[in-house]
């Protein structure tokens, strides 16, 4: 598909990407110590002697984190490895108290899987999952508290992360973003990661290379720690352009790790392959191989919630929604739940419109998501009911919604209070029609020549009735009176 290619000076190029997503496991305790996990605690308040690497301290595996990893693996339709193992990745840094990170290099807990992702245009593509493994997060260095010293906060040290490694199946920045969004949605559905990117609870490293269409993979660069959807797209665009320029100038790409600078919108070199650490991975002798029972995995599988893909398909068949509407609704679990609650016994398409348009827009303007939605789903349901039974027109419904959103009560109460009930009384409408025709004889005559000019009369009638006239009735009466 040519729209996947980008044009260089010398011809088209294709970007090839694979992502490593680091998702913090939703867990009250760390991966190998009983220390609490939380956001907002004071520096070094959530650190055990194990986390701080004191002599003689030993890691003990938190089974809940294992369960979360298995749950995530199942949600990614991936193979769960009944036997996995923890390895030590050795390097020195002040945020790494033991001098090694416990990770899973050789035998990850989750193997290959596949994720279906929807593009903006409604088409789907699949992304292969290479593996998911458990590992510890590091602490945090704070450089801005003192001009001469750096401080270490170990609260995050030892927190459980899932690293989800994709195959190099992504071809455009949009695909990469859609993939991360999809992974995030799945994990939130599963309850295995809160997906909060602002807090760094979900972040991505992007491997980018470029090639001429049909040629083998090029040399890749890894861009570290890209923390928002916008930055992912920016970083990839910049990096792809950078690589293409080098190649078109006859140069070659140096395999290296690069850092994205959100301020400048650029990537810059962090360390080259030659400078890359030798992590001296080896199996952690403090931990036994992790062996899981198939029965336990089956139990977890049986307890999985409905996942986004299933939910989208069900919304389409059960509610007759379009793929697009269903996709928008399932993108956030709270939004899907909200929709289903409001749609009970109502016109589901109409409810879907209200949820995806008005409600979503208001929440976005307020900087909230559906989990924080102040508007009860019952109000949306009632609003739609009022439209369905002809009490209000769709147009008036928008006005009703404004009042309801502003906290003036339920839609029925608002309609009552503001007298917004639709006028269906033919006499009242006829009176208004007669007055307008009488006041505008020339326009009435013109309608005979140009029947679509009736729209002007409809507008005038609605204006005269404060928008409350039943539009169908207005149309019928106008047509009769104007002889159409």
């Amino acid at each position: 598909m040519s729209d996947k290619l980008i044009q260089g000076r010398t011809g088209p190029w294709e970007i090839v990407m694979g992502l490593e997503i680091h998702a913090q496991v939703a867990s009250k305790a760390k991966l190998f110590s009983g220390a609490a996990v939380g956001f907002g605690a004071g520096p070094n308040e959530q650190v055990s002697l194990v986390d701080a690497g004191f002599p003689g301290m030993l890691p003990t595996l938190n089974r809940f984190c294992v369960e979360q990893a298995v749950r995530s693996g199942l949600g990614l339709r991936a193979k769960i490895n009944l036997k996995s193992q923890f390895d030590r990745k050795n390097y020195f840094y002040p945020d790494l108290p033991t001098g090694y990170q416990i990770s899973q290099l050789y035998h990850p807990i989750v193997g290959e899987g596949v994720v279906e992702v929807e593009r903006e245009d409604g088409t789907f593509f699949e992304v292969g999952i290479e593996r998911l493994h458990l590992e510890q997060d590091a602490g945090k260095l704070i450089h801005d508290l003192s001009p001469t010293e750096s401080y270490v906060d170990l609260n995050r040290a030892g927190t459980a992360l899932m690293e989800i490694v994709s195959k190099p199946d992504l071809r455009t920045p949009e695909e990469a973003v859609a993939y991360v969004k999809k992974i995030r949605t799945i994990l939130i559905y599963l309850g295995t990661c809160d997906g909060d990117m602002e807090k760094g609870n979900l972040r991505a490293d992007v491997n980018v290379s470029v090639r001429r269409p049909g040629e083998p993979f090029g040399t890749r660069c890894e861009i570290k720690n890209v923390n928002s959807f916008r930055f992912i797209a920016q970083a990839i665009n910049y990096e792809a352009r950078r690589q293409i320029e080098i190649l078109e100038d006859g140069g070659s790409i140096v395999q290296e790790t690069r850092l994205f600078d959100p301020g400048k919108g650029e990537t810059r070199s962090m360390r080259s392959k030659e400078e890359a650490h030798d992590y001296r991975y080896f199996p952690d002798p403090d931990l036994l191989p992790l062996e899981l029972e198939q029965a336990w995995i089956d139990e977890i599988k049986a307890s999985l919630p409905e996942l986004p893909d299933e939910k989208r398909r069900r919304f389409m068949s059960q509610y007759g929604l379009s793929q697009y509407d269903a996709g928008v609704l399932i993108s956030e679990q709270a939004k899907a739940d909200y929709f289903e609650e409001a749609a009970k016994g109502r016109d589901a398409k109409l409810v879907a419109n209200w949820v995806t348009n008005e409600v979503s827009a208001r929440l976005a303007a307020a900087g909230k998501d559906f989990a924080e939605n102040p508007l009860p789903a019952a109000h949306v349901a009632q609003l739609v009911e009022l439209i369905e039974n002809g009490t209000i027109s769709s147009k008036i419904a928008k006005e009703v919604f404004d009042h309801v959103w502003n906290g003036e009560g339920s839609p029925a109460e608002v309609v009552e209070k503001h007298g917004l009930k639709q006028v269906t009384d033919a006499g009242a409408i006829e009176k208004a029609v007669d007055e307008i025709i009488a006041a505008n004889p020339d326009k009435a005559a013109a309608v005979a020549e140009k029947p679509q000019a009736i729209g002007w009369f409809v507008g005038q009638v609605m204006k005269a009735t404060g928008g409350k006239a039943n539009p169908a009735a207005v149309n019928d009466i106008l047509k009769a009176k104007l002889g159409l």
Partner: protein
Amino acid sequence: MTDLTKLTLKAAVDGLKARDFSSEEITRAFLANIEAANPRLNAYVVQTSDKALDMARAADARLAKGEGGPLEGAPLGIKDLFCTDGVQTTAGSNMLRGFVPPYESTVTANLWRDGAVMLGKLNMDEFAMGSSNETSAFGPVVNPWKSGASNADLTPGGSSGGSAAAVAGDLCLAATASDTGGSIRQPAAFTGTVGVKPTYGRASRFGMVAFASSLDQAGPITKTVEDAALMLRSMCSFDPKDSTSLDVETPDWTQSLGKSVKGLRIGIPKEYVVDGMPAEQMELWEKGQAWLREAGAEIVEISLPHTKYALPAYYIIAPAEASSNLARYDGMRFGHRAADAKSLTDLYETTRAEGFGKEVQRRLTIGAYVLSAGFYDAYYVRALKVRRRIAEDFDNVWGKVDAILTPSTPSAAFAIGDRQIDPVTMYLNDVFTVTANLAGLPGVSVPAGLDKGGLPLGLQVIGKALDEATVFQVASALEDAAGFVAKPEKWW
């Protein structure tokens, strides 16, 4: 009155229970011995006299009420590898000089639970890396034994040299020790004491400063096999804080003592005959076989064909794990920190160059090397394969024999400074003991005779995993037959 410090642990515990003497009395007797001897023997690096007397008085109060655990009131020495709450723990290293842990190791906590009294912390090779106690940052321990007419100071072996010397020199009733490649059994053999390394996983490693996690195991050094059985029982427990701890019952091994070895099959591995082993050591080994045969056991020649690869494999695996385990000593949170470092890298390098001694640095370098990209498969992975073969060697003979008898060491104690020139010669001390660590098996060294200079020699019994009972049974038979009663002549 008898010298209380010459009692065995068992006799002391019985005497305390019978109220023949108080814990405070025997504790004071040991404190006096330590006071007098330590300047010469250098066995203790920390003396916790006040704490010892407090613990002793508390034990006496319990004993007076007819209460108390199996070790109630018994004064012990603790190898400085075990973290002790509020008491400096250094693992024999400048890196941890002044480090006072705010926590207690599981092994020592078990001992205090059972009523034992802590006399102090015992000297050791730095981070347990050594076979002579000469790598300690606190100076070498001197063996209470002397050879013949020579006045040369001998090493007590290592790394639990302080533990072995303290027990041999009556500076405690018994001592904790740890064994990664022979660090309990070799010093026990060098000092005429009994040393037991239990099955890997019997004793918790929680709070024990790590050397090589997959090999480290705590155990006692005592005056008799019975004492060892008594003390080991208190030390062992299932500990959820150590993932490699075994969830098994800890039996009462004193039940195995004195039990006839009639019908037991004892394996004699032909590969344990090494070049340069003194004739006396060979003769003692043969004597040990004769004693057991006379007691009704069947002596069976066996082959453990991969034995010769054990030492090289050990000296890859142990340093590899150590290189990672000791990375935490970086000057950031505790222990030594270099002054005036110019950069982060400089801080790491200087801290570790100043904090670690030469032998530790050598092993960390070896460890980092064998794990590095390009060498990992050739060294580390290969060593793990050898380790599996060695374990299989043992598995293959357990159908034919119930326990294995070997010499504990290739020689008797040597003089301080004698083997410092060549580290490999030093490493050869572990040749008979490392196999049990690699295979995770229990092993005991029993004093069985003297060489012509009058120095003690030990015999080792290796058993099946979790079958300490048979090991104690055989060790007890050897002890009875050998009638080893020699004590070093007091010169200190």
